[in-house]
């Protein structure tokens, strides 16, 4: 099921103008606060009305200003998980979960109560009131409640933003699981690039009400310097690698990337599974010849695929380290170093990456999904 969104709305001095499509899986909408992310969600859910535009989920048109279609929220079948949970305080967890389920015609229900409760691990909470739940439990119930309304599209508006680090880690896997298990398209709004790398397949970057970039997550992240948006995260690339083997005696996992191997801190993933690795552009050094007798573990051979210099005396060089895809390594070195190397497009090169520079948090299991 594909999602197509094109929206225009003017709010005071703020002009929102965004259009993107995406396929199955999790599409992340990323941007600073105030970039218009929440407006997009509320328009998709039908809680506010765009000035112009079109919203389509699969074959269903939810909004089309030209054709005069504007389904009210209750007829859109778009589930929404809010940042603050918004559980009904006067109902038990069970009644909260059943609220939307009861309103869906039986033949259109695809989420079974028992399955959702089991998956989210909220069985022991069913008789409690929302006031007696922890933040993480509340969000799990909220996700369950939205899933049980068997939505055509699940919107998540910063569902983890109100939680602390530990609670985030508690809820995050459930979102990935829900997406895999029920193959419902998810539009995931967040200002945390870490969450997005862990969850998303597609990425839409929003800034000042405009979509800066949209597409496959790896591609978008490789082309775009997001440091201006994230503030603390530097430019870097996302590589898609396969787990080769674990070497527990050195606390290392060896990943394969085309013909190259990458040693990273030990991760919990079965050999053969795909993982995403984020490598900061400034954590990579380049060499024309393969260095010998060095402490650097990760020496990736590749080809220079593009060169550009930035205004502040830096040079951005993309190195193709896995020609079969998923392996464009972004390196940022000083312009003078680049000049001394005398690089041209297509030159063979060695990229040097310190194992220690790859933090465990910078890796995520690539969500594998059932084909649909």
């Amino acid at each position, binding site marked *: 099921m594909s999602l197509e969104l094109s929206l225009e709305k003017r709010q005071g001095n703020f002009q929102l103008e965004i259009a993107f499509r995406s396929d199955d899986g999790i599409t992340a909408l990323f941007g600073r606060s105030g970039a218009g992310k929440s407006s997009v969600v509320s328009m998709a*859910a*039908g*809680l506010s009305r765009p000035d112009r535009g079109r919203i389509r989920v699969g074959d269903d048109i939810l909004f089309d200003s030209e054709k005069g279609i504007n389904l*009210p*929220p*209750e*007829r*859109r*079948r*778009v*589930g*929404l998980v*809010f940042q*603050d949970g*918004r559980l*009904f*305080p*006067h109902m*038990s967890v069970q009644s909260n979960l059943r*609220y*939307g389920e009861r*309103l*869906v015609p039986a033949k259109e229900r695809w989420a079974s109560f028992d399955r959702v409760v089991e998956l989210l691990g909220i069985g022991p909470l069913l008789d*409690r*009131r*929302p*006031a*007696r739940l922890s933040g993480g439990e509340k969000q799990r119930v909220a996700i369950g*409640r*939205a899933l049980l*309304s068997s939505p055509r599209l699940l919107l998540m508006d910063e569902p983890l933003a109100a939680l602390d680090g530990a609670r985030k880690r508690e809820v995050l896997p459930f979102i990935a699981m829900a997406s895999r298990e029920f193959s419902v398209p998810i539009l995931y709004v967040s200002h945390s690039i870490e969450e997005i790398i862990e969850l998303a397949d597609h990425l839409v970057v929003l800034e000042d009400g405009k979509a800066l970039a949209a597409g496959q997550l790896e591609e978008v992240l490789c082309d775009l310097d997001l440091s201006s948006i994230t503030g603390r995260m530097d430019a870097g690339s996302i590589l898609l690698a396969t787990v080769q083997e674990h070497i527990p005696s050195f606390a290392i996992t060896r990943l394969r990337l085309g013909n190259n191997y990458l040693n990273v801190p030990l991760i919990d993933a079965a050999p053969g599974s795909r993982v995403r690795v984020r490598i900061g552009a400034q954590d990579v050094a380049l060499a024309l010849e393969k260095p010998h007798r060095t402490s650097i573990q990760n020496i990736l051979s590749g080809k220079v695929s593009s060169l550009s210099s930035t205004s502040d005396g830096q040079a951005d060089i993309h190195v193709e380290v896995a020609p079969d895809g998923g392996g464009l390594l972004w390196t940022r070195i000083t312009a003078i170093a680049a000049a001394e190397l005398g690089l041209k497009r297509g030159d063979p090169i060695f990229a040097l990456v310190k194992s220690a520079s790859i933090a465990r948090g910078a890796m995520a299991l690539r969500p594998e999904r059932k084909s649909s």
Partner: protein
Amino acid sequence: MRLSLWVSGWAVATSLPLGIFCAWLLARRKFPGKSLFDGLIHLPLVLPPVVVGYALLVGFGRRGVIGSWLFDSLGVTFAFNWKGAALASAVISFPLLVRAVRLSLEGVDQGLEEAARTLGAGPLRVFFTITLPLVVPGVVTGSILAFARSLSEFGATITFVSNIPGETRTLPIALYTLTQTPGGDEGAFRLCVISVIVAMIALVASEILARRVARRMEG
């Protein structure tokens, strides 16, 4: 005494749905003339009750504009019977009811209503399953306030439906009558004690109900 409870009970019961509706209009809707409407509802709170009673007499009396129409078409009259007393009480206590419900409505997180909409509930269903249960404390407080105000209603009632034993002689009017009668002191004192007891029961009941609702929310 029983007449008083009966009249006040009816006054609150019949004005409750309209009161909730008006409170909802004031809390949630924007419409032209809203402040005028707001003022109109609060008018009985600030006017001398006698004025309200006189206005009711003019409007709803047997020969009043609305009163004569009601009598001709439906055979209902408010003049000089307990229904009139209930109407007078209802009008006087209406602002208290609306205020309490409105405050409570304004405290309801509209985000919860939005959440219910996205789960597939239409506006009406949202109102009855989310909004109304959440304003129950306000409705209870409002009702008890209105009930208590109805019990003590004197001016509008005596002006509109006079002082007819067994029909419109509510507790305060009976008390007044007794104080005007030589040798009525003992009876007046008895009614005083009864008033105090009823008022106390109403206040304690509202407190207990409010606490029970709060406990239910906490699970």
